[in-house]
């Protein structure tokens, strides 16, 4: 097994090494940007500053995911989760450098299914002027998109936590982020066939969140529930070990969403960016209210973990239509997302889909809801439920099948799940020989 673990690490390393060997890499001309016709150097610079700020915000979402996921799981698996999260960021950026960006934005003809612009990063002098885009340079474009890419994988991480083998997970992430995400992403944002067909997804309710959610669902199905979660027909909750960590995570994710959605305007356009920020915040606030009310009603007690998930639900829900729905609709979308996430968590527990952090409910359920909501509420008459459904199904089918097959292959080759003994003692000792809270005593009984 040790051999395999090592191998599973080497694989991505080798891929990277090989890839670099063939990459033609351009160097930036450090000359001042010459403005293209139609946009001033000043406006270009402002737009680019805004997009860089958005990039930072999306980056910090990874810390949000790391703390949320570790907070909602047990202390004995914390090192493992944190390790996965720091690795995902690195893997996401590197695969996106090597193949992802060029799979997702292949250029070439519009309306396609697949394209590839060649390995690695490279641009010419125009790449840093408004000739490339009015909103950002080639480099900003790449980095902003790369930060997005990694979030899809992080969503999977939470759902399969506390039982997946580290090496197997890293192999999955490398291929999922490197291949699956950019392909479906290209269908819409890379001017592919879905875009041509009129599907709308402003910042990625489907392209990012559902894709991650489908990957998570595939993983959970193949892994099965954690030991002790469903016993004798009953669901036994396995409580997260740190609500402060979980709360830090949600606040950081909310913050990051300002960049996720605000940056998806792709320029600093004052009216549009600020409107998107307002819908984003309102949906999150309504998601909190919706989730609190629902969980309070059902459990008779207000559940913090549900309130937190409610904020995320609202955020995922508004992501597809943040720029095209009214304030009123935003509130409806947010509240429904907040209600949905609670019901979805309970429903998945009923059917024994064990998702420790509620990632599937937040990202898949509410991702679908948010995408549909564009069809229902958009102020743009071009949008329709039918077109939205088409996108949801197409992207869902591709990413679920991709993830399922990939997980199944990994399961056959490397194995997917740690041993029962390791699961009971915790993955921190099993996978890392390293405790997260050295010196502290906590009960290992759950």
């Amino acid at each position, binding site marked *: 097994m040790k051999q395999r673990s090592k191998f599973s690490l080497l694989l991505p390393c080798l891929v990277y090494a090989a890839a670099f060997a063939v990459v033609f890499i351009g160097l930036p001309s450090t000359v001042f940007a010459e403005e293209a016709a139609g946009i001033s150097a000043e406006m270009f610079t402002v737009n680019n500053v805004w997009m860089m700020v958005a990039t930072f915000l999306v980056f910090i979402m990874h810390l949000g995911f790391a703390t949320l996921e570790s907070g909602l799981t047990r202390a004995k698996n914390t090192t493992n989760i944190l390790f996965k999260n720091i690795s995902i960021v690195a893997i996401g950026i590197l695969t996106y450098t090597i193949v992802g960006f060029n799979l997702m934005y292949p250029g070439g003809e519009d309306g396609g299914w697949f394209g590839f612009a060649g390995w690695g990063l490279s641009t010419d002098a125009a790449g840093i002027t408004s000739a490339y885009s009015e909103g950002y340079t080639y480099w900003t474009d790449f980095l902003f998109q790369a930060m997005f890419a990694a979030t899809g994988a992080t969503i999977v991480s939470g759902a399969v936590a506390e039982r997946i083998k580290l090496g197997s997970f890293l192999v999955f992430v490398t291929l999922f982020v490197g291949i699956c995400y950019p392909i479906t992403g290209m269908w819409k944002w890379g001017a592919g066939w879905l875009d041509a067909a009129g599907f709308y997804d402003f910042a990625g309710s489907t392209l990012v969140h559902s894709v991650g959610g489908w990957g998570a669902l595939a993983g959970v199905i193949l892994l099965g529930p954690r030991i002790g979660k469903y016993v004798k027909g009953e669901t036994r909750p396995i409580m997260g070990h740190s609500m402060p960590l979980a709360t830090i995570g949600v606040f950081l994710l909310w913050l990051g969403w300002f960049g996720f959605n605000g940056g998806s305007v792709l320029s600093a356009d004052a009216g549009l960016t600020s409107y998107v920020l307002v819908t984003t915040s309102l949906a999150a606030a309504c998601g909190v209210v919706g989730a609190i009310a629902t969980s309070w009603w059902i*459990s*008779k007690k207000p559940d913090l973990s*549900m309130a937190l998930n409610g904020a995320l639900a609202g955020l995922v829900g508004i992501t597809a239509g943040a720029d095209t729905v009214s304030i009123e609709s935003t509130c409806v979308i947010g509240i429904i997302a907040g209600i949905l996430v609670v019901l979805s968590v309970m429903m998945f527990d009923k059917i024994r889909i064990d998702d420790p952090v509620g990632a599937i409910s937040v990202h898949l359920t509410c991702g679908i809801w948010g995408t549909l909501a564009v069809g229902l509420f958009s102020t743009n008459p071009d949008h329709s439920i039918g077109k939205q459904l088409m996108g949801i199904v197409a992207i869902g089918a591709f990413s679920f099948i991709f993830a399922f097959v990939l997980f199944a292959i990994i399961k056959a080759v490397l194995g997917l799940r740690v041993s029962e003994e390791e699961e009971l003692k915790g993955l921190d000792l099993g996978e890392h020989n390293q405790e997260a809270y050295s010196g502290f005593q906590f009960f290992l009984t759950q």
Partner: protein
Amino acid sequence: MKLIIAYIQPEKLNDVKQALFDKNVSKMSVTNAVGCGQQGGYEEHYRGTVVEVNLLKKVRVEVAVNDDFAQSTIEAITGAARTGQIGDGKIFVISLDDCIRIRTGETGNDAIG
């Protein structure tokens, strides 16, 4: 010499300590414990499901005393920890064969206080 082990409600520790001081019993050792007794337990809610918690937080107090102090120690603990409600706790009394003060090497009755 007796070793008196008391499981009490956490919030009663200060009162028990005070009551023991008042009886000139000023040495004790305390650990955290969870216990399961007549009190039954309670439900916690987490993400839409219910957790039956029947291991409740308790504090475990260990006091070693000479035989003539045993009764008053027990009384002090009982008096301070009692609320009359289920969950008040239990006291167990064990015979001590010996007691040694590490610092001086004294043993027996001299070492205990």
